């Protein structure tokens, strides 16, 4: 990466960091939902754990671990898509796209912002889980970082798909930035094993990196081992999805330049 690319990426990141500095509701919103979700699921899991003995204690860990890790996928996806939408809402895309910022640098910026937004959103919830329920997500060891990385990658390619649709359909597609990953939650087997899904849904589930991550998480809680095979499959699926969605993005970006959508996208 050249110095010029680093400066351009930093320039656009700086624009977003200053936005958060001046807008406390945006900053508060980052941690609001992850913390609220963790509190609700934590209370629910503790209620059941108290009534089901040691099995309930393991289930408590699986559930709360699942909630916190799924928030990583949700926040990384929203973080990237909403950062793009901030440019649409401020009618600034025209200036950004006539600057020397390359499309890949724009994506690198959005991914970097997504990391920061996810950390700002999920880490307070992780700390609160430890404070309220004595649940330490990192007790599973370094494998947690591999789970988190795979879920973050999944959030990014889903977001890339959302941005592609915004490029095609304009701001009318912005609702997808909040909703699309929720639609994948049932297939991601966050709170239950893939085996409880109907046959056709299991097929969908195994195509998603998230289902492998959460199967691996449950295996780690039950066996205490590191489920490398699940992690490798999740990473491979992320690679495949990135290629597929990346091709879609390139096609839609070119189509947007052919149709003039880069100027009209906020209309």
């Amino acid at each position, binding site marked *: 990466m050249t110095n010029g690319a680093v*400066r351009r990426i930093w320039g656009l990141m*700086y624009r977003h960091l200053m936005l958060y500095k001046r807008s406390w509701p945006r900053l508060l919103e980052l941690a609001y939902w992850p913390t609220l979700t963790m509190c609700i699921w934590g209370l629910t899991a503790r209620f059941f754990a108290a009534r089901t003995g040691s099995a309930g204690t393991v289930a408590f860990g699986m559930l709360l671990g699942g909630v916190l890790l799924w928030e990583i996928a949700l926040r990384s996806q929203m973080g990237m898509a909403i950062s793009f939408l901030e440019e649409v809402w401020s*009618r600034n895309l025209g200036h950004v796209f006539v600057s020397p910022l390359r499309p890949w640098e724009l994506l690198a910026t959005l991914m970097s912002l997504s990391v920061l937004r996810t950390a700002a959103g999920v880490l307070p919830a992780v700390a609160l889980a430890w404070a309220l329920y004595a649940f330490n997500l990192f007790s599973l060891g370094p494998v947690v970082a591999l789970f988190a990385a795979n879920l973050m990658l999944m959030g990014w390619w889903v977001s890339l798909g959302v941005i592609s649709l915004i490029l095609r359909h304009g701001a009318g597609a912005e609702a997808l930035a909040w909703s699309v990953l929720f639609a994948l939650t049932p297939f991601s087997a966050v709170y239950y094993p893939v085996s409880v899904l109907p046959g056709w849904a299991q097929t969908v589930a195994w195509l998603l990196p998230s289902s492998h991550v959460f199967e691996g998480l449950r295996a780690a809680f039950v066996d205490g081992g590191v489920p490398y095979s699940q992690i490798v499959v999740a990473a491979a699926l992320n690679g495949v999805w990135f290629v597929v969605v990346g091709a879609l993005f390139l096609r839609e970006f070119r189509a947007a330049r052919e149709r003039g959508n880069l100027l009209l996208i906020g209309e």
Partner: protein
Amino acid sequence: MHAIVVDRLCKSFGEILAVNGLDFSVDPGETVGLLGGNGAGKTTTIAMLLGLLIPTSGNISILGHDMARARFAALARMNFSSPYVALPQKLTVAENLRVYGHLYGVRGIEERIATIAEQLGFTAMLKRATGELSAGQKTRVALAKALINRPDVLLLDEPTASLDPDSGDFVRSWLERYRAESGCTILLASHNMLEVERLCGRVLVMKHGRIVDHGSPAQLLAKYGRDDLEEVFLDIARDRNRRIPA
């Protein structure tokens, strides 16, 4: 070498032919006005020059770079201002200029911001949120953004639209001075005939996506037998009273 070369440029949106076989060039240091009514194809042409729109056919070369193959090399030496493309409103003026200073790889950003703010008379506004500024102040800031990288080619789309006469005159005077000092090439799309007459050495008049006439403001006035460009514009737009010598 020309600063801008446009060769047989066409752009269609489905059945609509927005730009139809445009051919022109602009020399370094020249200021050229793009005149035309709404829907004449001015904004579409500027969007293609900036790489925001891919032409249906034809070629664009800016500062020797083919915009289809090497647009980023050209974009680093260009800039653009339009009242229809905003800067983030929550950021202060200085922050916005800092963002674009980084995007264009400007060295000594803080000094550049201080200099340009002083020249354009908004030093006192540097710490104010861009959204709190008046239309005239925003136009100065947008101009500062467009000049942050000391561009060799500047594309201006109606730079004084919605400004009061005093602010409009300030911007026009400043552009005249800047062009004289920097030797910057300017392509200006405007509906303001006085502005075009004052700033442009040459005018390209567009209608239905084509250049239907061109020349210096004085040449066009003589050709149409008119006293001001507004009447020339109306003659062309309405196909009326043409008194063009044979």
